[in-house]
Structure formats: structure tokens, C-alpha cells
């Protein structure tokens, strides 16, 4: 909102207002007799957007075509306004004086006999016409713009109250590639330090280890045989068995057997030492436990 913009009176000066009558008086009259209410003149001047606007007004007021400006007449009218403004000691924008000079130049040129060969491309009148036309074009464009359907004035944004929002901070996304890239760099570092040899492990065995551990943690002791799923086939059983071996080796589970040929149980590794432990890490033969 242009609060800092002075609000203009309605766009185009309405010439029926007293101001026009005042200014309509010929300047040839004794200036002292010329009654111009100072406020009125200021308001009047403010309605012009500059010398081009004032000129356009003078032209239109006489129903003249921009393309056929009687330069002498217009110039003298323009000068009258300038003179009145100066007389009123209204601060004149420099542009008004520049225009006055331009008009005076055009006028004087037109009075001179024209040379046969006009090589002066910079004809001052053509330039004035061009500028007046260009200005008029955008003056009109601005008026058109003002008539467009506009938010806040003609149409309004429609809204509704919000429901209680789920205050969700979205979770970060990662791609498999990102994770693998990260892993690769870990592997690289591990390789450099040569402490680890983590390349060759079958992921299926590691996954089975995790699942076995989770099951054992949930259910406690589990019978060895029940940990094999015949539907998985031999390969599946082997994976399960390898997982058990590794879990046992890493002291994550205990394998217990009350007595020879009794059922073998797996249980989460714990402090309980009251049963015989079958330790695959020792040199004991595992075959005896392999049903």
C-alpha cells in the first residue's frame, strides 16, 4: 500500500472546476488583476504528471490532434502556465523549464525558412510528437491497468480457518545410493586400517543372525530344531545354521543340551551358568549337536 505516495485527486483534472477558469485567463492581462487562489493552483499542478501531461492537456482541451500541433499557440499557452507558476513562487520541477526551452526552440525553428535539403534528422517537432505520443500511450495504459479486476478492491481472497495442524517435521529422505556411498567410504577407511575384513560376509547370514537374536530375545529359550523352516529348503536351513554358529561364536547366544540326545535349545546369552554349554569356539566336535 503506497502510504508514502501522495493521493492524487481523481486522475484527470476536471476543467469545469474553478481552477480552469482561473487559469483560462489570458496572461496578457495585468498579472496583478489575475486572481488565482494559491491553493487551487497548487492542486491543479499536482494533477499533472509533468510537462508532457500538461502539454497533452493543453492539446486535448482544444480538441487538437497530437499529430497536428499548432506549436506557436501551444507554446504560448504553456508559457503562460509557467509564468503563473513562477509568479506564484511555486517550485517548478526542472522538467517544466526544459520543456519550455524545447517549445521555444521548435517555435523559432518553424519561423525560419526551411533549407531545401533537410538533413537535420533531429527535427524538434517530430521529437516532441513522438514523446507526446509515447507518453499518452502509457498514460492510457496506466488508466487501463487501474480498471483491471484487482485484489482487495474488486475481488477478495477467500479463506477458511485451519484445522489443528499436525505439527510434523518431515523426516529426512535418503537414497540407497547415499547410504551405499557412505558405506563405501567406511569400507575404504577400514581397508586402509586393515583391521577389518568385512567384505565377504553373506548378508543373508547376517540378517538371519539378527532375526534369530530378535526371536530369542522375545521368546527366551527356543528349541534348536524349531528354528529351521523346512519350506526354505536346504539353502535356508544352512543359512540358519550358519547364523547360529556365528551367534554362538560371538557369544550372543548359548546353545544348551541337558544331556546327550536330549533336545538342544538356543537361548540369549546370559549370565546363567547352570546348564552345560556347548561351545563351538572350543575344539569340541559340533557334529554331535547337529541333528
Amino acid at each position, binding site marked *: *500500500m*503506497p502510504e*508514502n*505516495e*501522495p*493521493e*492524487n485527486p481523481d*486522475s484527470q483534472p476536471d476543467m469545469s472546476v474553478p481552477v480552469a477558469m482561473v487559469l483560462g485567463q489570458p496572461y496578457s492581462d495585468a498579472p496583478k488583476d489575475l486572481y488565482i487562489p494559491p491553493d487551487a493552483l497548487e492542486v491543479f499542478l499536482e494533477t499533472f*504528471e*509533468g*510537462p*508532457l*501531461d500538461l502539454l497533452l492537456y493543453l492539446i486535448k482541451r482544444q480538441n487538437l490532434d497530437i*499529430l*497536428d*500541433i499548432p506549436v506557436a499557440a501551444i507554446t504560448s499557452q504553456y508559457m503562460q502556465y509557467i509564468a503563473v507558476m513562477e509568479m506564484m513562487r511555486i517550485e517548478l*520541477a526542472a*522538467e517544466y523549464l526544459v*520543456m519550455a526551452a524545447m517549445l521555444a526552440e521548435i517555435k523559432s525553428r518553424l519561423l525560419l525558412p*526551411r533549407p531545401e535539403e*533537410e538533413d537535420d*534528422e*533531429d*527535427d524538434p*517537432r*517530430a*521529437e516532441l*510528437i*513522438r*514523446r507526446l*505520443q*509515447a*507518453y*499518452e*500511450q*502509457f*498514460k*492510457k*495504459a*496506466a*488508466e*487501463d*491497468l*487501474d480498471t*483491471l*479486476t*484487482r*485484489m*482487495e*478492491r*474488486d*475481488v*477478495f*481472497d*477467500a*479463506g*477458511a480457518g*485451519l484445522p489443528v495442524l499436525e505439527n510434523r517435521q518431515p523426516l529426512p529422505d535418503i537414497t540407497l545410493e547415499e547410504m551405499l556411498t557412505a558405506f563405501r567410504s567406511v569400507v575404504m577407511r577400514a581397508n586402509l586400517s586393515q583391521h577389518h575384513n568385512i567384505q565377504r560376509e553373506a548378508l543373508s547370514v547376517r540378517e538371519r543372525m539378527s532375526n534369530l537374536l530378535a526371536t530369542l530375545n522375545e521368546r527366551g529359550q527356543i528349541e534348536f530344531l524349531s528354528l529351521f523352516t523346512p519350506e526354505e529348503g536346504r539353502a535356508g536351513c544352512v543359512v540358519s545354521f550358519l547364523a547360529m554358529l556365528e551367534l554362538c561364536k560371538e557369544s550372543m547366544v548359548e546353545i544348551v543340551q541337558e544331556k546327550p540326545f536330549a533336545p538342544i535349545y538356543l537361548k540369549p546369552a546370559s549370565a546363567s551358568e547352570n546348564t552345560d554349554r556347548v561351545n563351538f569356539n572350543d575344539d569340541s566336535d559340533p557334529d554331535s549337536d547337529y541333528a
Partner: protein
Amino acid sequence: MAPDQIKKILEAALMAVDKPLTVAHLHALFANEEEPVERDQVKEALTTLQSEYDDRGVSIVEVASGFRVQIDQELSPWISLLFEERAPKYTRALLETLALVAYRQPITRSEIEEVRGVAVSTNIIKTLLEREWVRVVGHKEVPGRPAMYATTKEFLDYFNLRRIDELPPLSELKDLDSIAKEAGLPVDPVEDVEGESGESEIPEDAVDEELISQELSEDGDQRDAGNVVLH
């Protein structure tokens, strides 16, 4: 998801925010559905919704930055009463400046001043920038590297336009040949006369076209700025 549910969500979404929403934005609301919702379903639901809003005093309209729900102009006499402050009235100076930026973009301040014949107040530029109707898209490669201004999507949104070429056409200029003839002046080749006053001499239609295609390409500020600088 059932079309009715999609429609409900779209309607609520458009009412929930006071900015227009693009189809892409609306479609993204369904990203988490188990059963994927296609972009076309969203578009279809929007169309249905739009037709349902016929004759309700409220419409779903498409503007430059997407779709929004807005209250129709016919109800403006009553709706205006709800707002204590009257809608801002913009000065001629501001509107003329805005029109120049809109039709002649990208344009520098001095180019605006040249056409208007008066200095452009800093306040006007500030207001236009603050309203986000105008933005700086680059700097002209002339001494002082003045900023070049162009209009924004927000400008189009505010004036209920989808594209810059929906602006009313500029009034036609009579060509200077005929001006010269009518004025009884020697006829100069148009090019020469135009050559003198620089850029503003490009035939208006051409400028307009150029702007439009620039706007439509929407390749972002950088590109636009680049073009500007070259010119």
C-alpha cells in the same frame, strides 16, 4: 482415492493458504497415499470443483502463480464493507510507472523517466518493490549499471492475470512517417528518426511480443537479466 475425497482436499487446501497453489503443489499433497493419485486426477478434480463453484459468488480462478479461491467482483459492494480501510488507491504516477515496467520490461528508472518526462520518485519504486509487483532482474551495462526492473508473478496475481500478454494491448502509435507528412515536415526514413531516441523506438508490438515470450520461457531471473544486459 475417491474423486470426491480429492476434491474435498483440494478445496480445503485452496482455502487454507492465501497464496495461489499450482497443480504441482496440489498434487504433492497426495504424495503419501498408498494408492497413488495421478496429476490428471488432481486436474480433473479441480475442473469439477471449478464448475461446482459456478454462480456461488466465490470462484476458483487460475492466475499466474496457480489456483486460488476468490470472491467474485459482483459481491464487492458488500464485501468491501467488511474492511475498515478502503482498498488502496494508487496514484497516477505509480500506475504509469507500473505500466511502463509491465509493458517495457526490463526497463531502467531513467528509461521510465524519459517516457514520463519527469523524475520517478524513489518512493514509487520502493512501493512497487515492497508490494513485490516489481523486482530487479539485472543491471544494464551502461555507466552506473542502473537496475533493470520487471514485473513479478505477484503483480499478475494481484491484477487477476495469468500471463503478461493478458494485459490490455497498448494503444497504437501512428508511425512517424505519417506524422511528418501531416505536419508538413520532410519525410525522414523512419529508422533515422527512431534511431535517435534509443530503445523506446522499437515498434511497440515487437517489444510486446518479445516480452511475452520472455515471460513465457520463465527461465528465471538469470537468463532474463542476461538478455537484458546484452540489449
